[in-house]
């Protein structure tokens, strides 16, 4: 039932999303949710905090489908975790990297290009794996 035939179209759509300017979008986020998260998904601040509460108190986290770095930047910033944000579009990873720098966590939060079905990490590399509405 998984619609693999739409995969390339979906990835291309994601690229467009990440390349576009976002100042008005950021203002929309701020007004609608009280915070500019750098997302266009459904994971609001309280949900990102619940995600942080669910992972071990320290250690390393892999954030799958990190997009613009949300909610990974919250986990790295508020939890102090070492974090790798993984996604496919390079355009997204550039934005995530900028988000990590702006959040002051660039020394422990990194980005990596890859997809969930072929992860470029050795077994046991992470204490936690998170994701939020990947591919929506």
């Amino acid at each position: 039932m998984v619609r693999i035939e739409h995969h390339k179209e979906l990835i291309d759509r994601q690229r467009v999303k990440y390349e576009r300017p976002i100042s008005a979008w950021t203002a929309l986020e701020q007004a609608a949710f009280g915070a500019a998260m750098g997302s266009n998904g459904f994971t609001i601040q309280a949900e990102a905090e619940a995600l942080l509460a669910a992972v071990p108190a320290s250690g390393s986290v892999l954030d799958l489908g990190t997009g613009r770095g949300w909610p990974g930047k919250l986990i790295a910033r508020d939890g102090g975790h070492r974090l790798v944000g993984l996604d496919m579009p390079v355009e997204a990873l550039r934005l995530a990297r900028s988000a990590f720098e702006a959040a002051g966590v660039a020394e422990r939060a990194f980005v990596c290009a890859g997809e969930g079905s072929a992860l470029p990490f050795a077994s046991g590399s992470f204490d936690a794996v998170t994701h939020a509405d990947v591919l929506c």
Partner: protein
Amino acid sequence: MLRQGGVLAGYVIHTPPGLSEADLETAGDLGPSFVAGMDDPAASAALSGFDVLHVQDVTARFRETGLAWVEGLGDREALLREELGDVEYEYELHRKGCIIEGIESGLLRRSFYVFNGR
């Protein structure tokens, strides 16, 4: 990549169990493209070697968030059309509206889960 005993946590948009083929098709049209492949995240995780620590239905908040997006898109239509262009603006509005339709027709759910790797 997860160590033994590590945590897998996240939010997943999925369908309720027991949908007909036609409803699954509709859910796939209304929701994220991969939604029709998932109707029970906890069962899928158990099959993959995880123990379920916590599962919470967050569909009501999912709907609220979707409605906030649509309202915000409407409130800032002129600015967003200027910034995104008409095609992207219409696409975003359409997709958010589809998701709300999917939630309200009982075809889409969203869950928060925490699993523990064995």
